[in-house]
């Protein structure tokens, strides 16, 4: 399977007019950091708790900007009330790129972070798309369009930790 390249993800963000990336580092999207920090058209807003990402994004969106949230599934689950109140409650059309810690399409998922991720999204009625390689990357544009159309958060599950599990070895 092909890699998910950071350049392709960044291109998707730029093509969709993202102005800010509100993020907390995680191992699945770590590879994006250097590229994003060097990209002048995107402003990085670092948060220390994922719940702050949803309220920050709500403020940015209220002011006419187009934020993207970049967090890990563990933090997304910790952010439930903020997602409810700020994200869904204020109809924020935001793409949340969620590092899918523990995800594998091979064998049995043993990490509870992965086990509960999609269940959590179902509970909040958040639609989501799995992105594992560049071949899936156009799903990011689909998520942007859906978020704008539906005026609510849409998730991208990034299943590529350190390019770890889907690279031929």
């Amino acid at each position: 399977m092909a890699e998910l390249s950071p350049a392709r993800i960044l291109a998707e963000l730029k093509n969709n007019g993202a102005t800010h990336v509100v993020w907390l580092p995680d191992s699945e999207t770590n590879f994006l950091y250097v590229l994003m920090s060097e990209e002048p058209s995107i402003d990085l807003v670092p948060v220390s708790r994922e719940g702050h990402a949803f309220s920050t994004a709500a403020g940015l969106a209220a002011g006419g900007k187009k934020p993207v949230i970049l967090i890990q599934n563990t933090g997304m689950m910790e952010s439930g009330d903020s997602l409810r109140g700020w994200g869904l409650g204020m109809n924020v059309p935001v793409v949340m790129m969620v590092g899918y810690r523990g995800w594998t399409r091979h064998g049995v998922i043993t990490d509870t972070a992965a086990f509960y991720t999609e269940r959590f999204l179902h509970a909040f009625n958040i639609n989501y798309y799995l992105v594992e390689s560049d071949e899936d990357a156009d799903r990011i544009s689909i998520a942007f369009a859906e978020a704008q159309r539906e005026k609510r958060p849409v998730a991208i599950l990034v299943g590529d930790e350190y390019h770890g599990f889907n690279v031929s070895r």
Partner: protein
Amino acid sequence: MMKTAEMLEIFNRHRGDAVVIPGRGGRFWVEMSEQPNRDLPLGDPAMGGHASFALGLALAIPDQRVVLFDSEGDVLMGMGALPTVAEKAPSNLYHFMLDNGVYATTGGQPVPNAEQMEYDVVAQGCGYPATYAIDNLEDFASQIEEILSQPGPVFVALKIDPDIINEPINARPQWQRKTRNQAVADMQAELGISIG
């Protein structure tokens, strides 16, 4: 100690055309504001998020002054937002925090370590370039002009009287005059912000 309504009345004289997020002071602010289309009386979408929301808004509209009336309960719950505010350092953000020492909307139980907290020191330690602690109306009246005349982010801890609410949520008077989304839409129209 100050009464929230009296403090807000003094602030209102110095508001200019700032966008105001009245936070826990919302029920008083909607009665006195003369520019409701520049107000975001959001109530409490989710506790602990007001500072981050105000940060996002301030970054998005750098030519507009953004004033937040946060609460100490919210700041305690979302204290990790303060370093982000300080790092991004929006010069248009004025972060007031109402400290009544209690969770007033749940019956008045004290917040953790209520008597010992020095929120201005916390904000200073997080990197806010200017911080204040004010515990009486006279000092607030004499310092508000100075506070608003300097570049943000500025943090102002205000000691206020608790306005404790003990009624069940469904029995409380509804002070909000429009929905959150309508308030946002009105502000966007007022400021000429295009969406999409």
